[in-house]
């Protein structure tokens, strides 16, 4: 809660609604990687706004997951510059390797595959977002290593 009050203190008196996007990020991190209606209601109650105001925002921005996701979320960029450098092949490889389609989660709940639009790192293509970091210049071998690394994480 200390973090919450620090975030709210960034804005002038009465403008606490501005904390909504940072608090939804925080809620997603804290409550299992996705935003349930209960999490959104909770954030709304902290900011003293209507729950609908939180839903409105959560449904607009693509980084909020409105359904449960696997423990490791692969968000692979597929926009122009990544496509020129073989992102289609990487996406196909991950699909085959994990035996899931885009938007699906493996049966053990470990991995979810999502395609995303431009991550703003086109010089390092093809790439994906994994947690708070990017994994760049992806190859099939690198994908194997990343999957292994995730499996070994407790």
């Amino acid at each position, binding site marked *: 809660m200390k973090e919450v009050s620090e975030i709210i203190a960034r804005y*002038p008196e009465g403008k606490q*609604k501005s904390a909504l*996007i940072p608090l939804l990020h925080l809620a997603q991190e804290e409550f299992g990687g996705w935003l349930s209606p209960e999490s959104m209601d909770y954030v709304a109650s902290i900011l003293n706004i209507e729950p609908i105001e939180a839903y409105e925002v959560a449904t607009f921005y693509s980084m909020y997951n409105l359904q449960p996701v696997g423990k490791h979320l692969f968000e692979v960029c597929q*926009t*122009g*510059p990544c496509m020129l450098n073989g992102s289609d092949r990487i996406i196909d490889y991950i699909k085959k390797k994990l035996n899931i389609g885009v938007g699906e989660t493996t049966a053990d709940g470990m991995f979810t595959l999502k395609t995303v639009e431009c991550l*703003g790192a086109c*010089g390092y293509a093809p790439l994906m977002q994994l947690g*708070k970091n990017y994994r760049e210049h992806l190859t099939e071998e690198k994908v194997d290593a990343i999957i292994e690394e995730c499996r070994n994480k407790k």
Partner: protein
Amino acid sequence: MAKKILLEKAHVEGIRYYDVYRREGGYRSVEKALKMDPTAIVEEVKKSGLRGRGGAGFPTGMKWSFLAKPEGVPRYLVCNADESEPGTFKDRYLMEFIPHLLIEGLIVSSFALGSNRTYIYIRGEYAWIVAILEQAIAEAKQHGFLGKNILGTGFDCEIYVQRGAGAYICGEETALIESLEGKRGNPRIKPPFPAIKGLWDCPTVVNNVETLAAVVPIMNMGGEEYAKIGVGRSTGTKLLSACGNINKPGVYEIDMTISVEEFIFSDEYCGGIPNGKKLKACIPGGSSVPILPANLLLKTAKGETRYMNYESLSDGGFASGSMMGSGGFIVLDEDQCVVRHTMTLARFYRHESCGQCSPCREGTGWMEKILNKIENGKGAMSDIDLLWDIQRKIEGNTICPLGDAAAWPVAAAIRHFRDEFEWHVNNPELCLQQNYGLANYANELSLVS
């Protein structure tokens, strides 16, 4: 010759930290500026000829001079770090490697504009950069360059970092302001402009990361000296992010006097096309600006050498030119399919349309679907005309420029590569197995070996 003024020190070891940055001459511009009258700083920026580095290229000094200053109403400076234009990753580089340069520029600019509370709105995906910026802010504060009574001048300023959450549209300044207020990123109808009514209805200036960083050298060398770098109305240096099919993708600082050919083929910059392939096409300023075939990229329609600056890149208008845009330089080699590439951009804009204006909301979806159809060998000749018709009906008919940004890439692809679209329609099976290649563009490419 490459003249570096923003990234000159970016590779000094430890430059990310205050001690090294300060030792290398950092924060001198703050010491200088805080002794000046704020309006004199705005004048320096005007004299420098600096143009907004986010994409629109609007003169920064002029934008600053529009800021309303009613008594008793706070004013805000917001730094636009929502870098999302496909092909663009220059601000990320600057913030990641030399964050204090941005913080220094922000302090001077905040003083010039009278902002005591300044925000950096950064795209949500750049999560690790938030920590880098917050560390730089904490260090600057610890050394008296931020906080209360900065350097004993009585000027108070705090800088806060706000993370977005995945929305290209929030790079549009009024959508950014909406997002910063904790709402959906729907652009506002202008006027009123943010300079009059922006963040929390107060006068606000929104500037790109690179623009605000450039305020540092402008203060240090003076506006007139800065204006001597570059050519014509393209003053100063520009960061370019180069990607696609080139040997050396990355971020380059140029002084806007080099030719496009030199930029692509010189080892100092992109280092040419990998595997001995030929250059087919290029989008020189981020995905929204028109794609050009190699012949029109390297030379203008008049046959003159094309240079990497605002005027030369747009020479010929949309008929035969393009734009400097955000500096996102995307290169396509002979093996690439323009239809497929355009489809990925159409998909991007469909995904990123906020949905407020029907021409954009509906039109971007239609364009993606039709491009997909043609790309997959299921298109008809009439689909090409339909695409043209749709893009024309989006352009200029929306609240914000996202509609134009979605229309232009499709228009330019058809304008310059119509034969490739027709080939897809005429060869529905072959187009699934192979690409169209260079065809007639290659004949005009005597420059490229």
